[in-house]
């Protein structure tokens, strides 16, 4: 069995804000982390490896510093990691990202299951997984919290808003994983030692035989034309004092919102 985990390095999102004076993103002092949902995907792959044996290959597209995230993935128990890094990949939206990942996965070849996180917490699009599956022509399931391989197929349970669907996917297949798969294990000491020494190859656009019209900004039909802080909300009318007086004032205001 060969498992591929797609991973993204993201800024710790709750720390990213807009500077109200300049309107620019404040990124200083914001730590980069492995997208938490991708850690669940990695944990799912580790569970698969525990149960069915095999090898885990982690891939990530990003700037050179993404290597840290890949080393961390090895510490968690991945066997190999590949970094997709090229100036030409920059500015990719989900369509170009999924193309780039698909090219790399074709080059890796001979895989059984691809694990992605449900979504990345910086963009929250949840699109790369399904787009990637389409590009590779794979059956897939999103929001998977449980899976097993049975008679050569992948049986998955996944959450929809109104219930749980059980699907049978032909292998190879792609799944996107939710946190109910279980907390990621703690990286082991041996894993950390291995991660320190691991050689992580860097694949450029040329190495994955990418069409330059389909990668990076060229391959991205969407453009961010504006970024801004969410409109400040809240009238911030705060009552302090005796509870019975506070609630009287509150109820007077709420009368306009609902029938009290």
């Amino acid at each position: 069995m060969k498992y591929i985990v797609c991973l993204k390095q993201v800024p710790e999102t709750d720390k990213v804000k807009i500077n109200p004076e300049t309107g620019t993103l404040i990124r200083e002092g914001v730590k980069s982390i492995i997208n938490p949902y991708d850690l669940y995907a990695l944990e799912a792959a580790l569970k698969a490896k525990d149960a069915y044996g095999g090898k885990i290959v982690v891939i990530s597209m990003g700037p050179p510093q993404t290597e840290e995230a890949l080393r961390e993935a090895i510490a968690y128990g991945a066997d190999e990691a590949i970094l997709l890094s090229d100036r030409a990949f920059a500015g990719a939206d989900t369509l170009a990202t999924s193309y780039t990942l698909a090219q790399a996965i074709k080059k890796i070849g001979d895989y059984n299951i691809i694990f992605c996180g449900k979504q990345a917490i910086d963009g929250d699009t949840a699109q790369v997984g399904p787009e990637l599956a389409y590009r590779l022509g794979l059956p897939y399931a999103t929001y998977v919290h449980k899976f097993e391989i049975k008679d050569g197929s992948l049986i998955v349970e996944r959450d929809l808003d109104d219930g749980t669907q059980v699907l049978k996917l032909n292998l190879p297949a792609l799944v996107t994983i939710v946190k109910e798969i279980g907390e990621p294990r703690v990286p082991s000491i041996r894993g950390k030692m291995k991660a320190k020494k691991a050689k992580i190859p860097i694949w450029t656009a040329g190495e994955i035989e990418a069409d330059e019209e389909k990668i990076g900004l060229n391959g991205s039909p969407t453009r961010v034309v504006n970024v801004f802080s969410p409109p400040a909300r809240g009238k911030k009318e705060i009552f302090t004092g005796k509870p019975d007086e506070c609630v009287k004032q509150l109820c007077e205001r709420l009368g306009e919102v609902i029938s009290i």
Partner: protein
Amino acid sequence: MELILDKNKCTGCGQCVEVCPFGAIELKDGLPVANDECRLCGVCVRKCPEGALALPEKAKKRDIQDARDVWVYAEQKGNDFTGVVYELLGKGRELAQTLGQRLVAVVIGHEVEKHAHKLINYGVDVAYVIDHPELKDFNEKKYAQVLIDLIKANQPNIFLAGATPRGRSLIPQVAAALETGLTADCTGLEIDPDTSLLLQTRPAYGGNIMATITCAHTRPQMATVRPHIFPRPEALSGHEGKIVKVEVEALPQGIEVLSFVQAEIEGPDLTEADVVIGVGRGIKGPENLKLIEKLACLLNAQIGGTRAVVDAGWLSHRYQIGQTGLTISPKLYIACGISGAVQHIVGIQSAKTIVAINKDPEAPIFEVADYGIVGDLFEVIPALIEEIKTRRGESS
């Protein structure tokens, strides 16, 4: 690929440095230079008063002139469409009218034609019905294939779907197949009066930032749209539209639906409720939910909670509100004993009115609240219950 600078035009005024959302431009020897953080978003290009900056983009003119109409994917839930479909029909009609184009809906399933009539009442000009026994259960591969074929044959200008689990799982395949842009989980849609492009606004970075996105050179312009953002329109009377049945060719295999277990719905859905009361660690223990329930009963409200409360096992994870849980948009949200972590705020910021009750006046929840009471919730809530009863003349 890098930003293109016309050195003859550039005056080194530095406005591009100021305006760059990614802090990626520095002035070197009086001229702007973009570093690796540059996403080629084009904000600086538009800001530059001299027209000295340009994006290194090759003009991509696909056949977008012929693309017409605003399409809505009419996702079903049981015997009806999901709520967001109606919201999209309302918004879609508005967009279609602005563009002078038609509103089109697509229904996929088995024995669904009868529902298609309902769509006409909400202003749909053409409703495509894709009906096949194999489409009875939601199946991404099969649904995607029929949708892709239909879109390829018709070239819509705009395609909208609800940002529901099904929508967000299905639609990206369509975008990949058509090599077009898809914007996820939008909270704002409008037509740019100058370019007629769809301006798609969505939160990013966990809601700390809003981004407006366009898709200029490919069609359709696709977006999934967050439920409960746009109002549900009234049905129109006498609107005329046609229903078109679509022939289904051989469907792709690879995914087989073995079963679907409907979640047990304990009371109405939090995301549909008009009034929601949220509880945080401040309620101290599950035994105190009784008090909250009394208030909920009076206000006909549903109860949800923070991740901390769910992790502590006081509430089922089905009722977790926030980044890793539900996003709600009730008329009234009452936060009880919730400090207001960003991850929670993200889930409640589309509530019309937010009330916060917390004993810590410094709690960040007060920053987003419309009304707040600083006090011990074990005193405030009983007082609130009494006050409401008094106002209703129920008090003993």
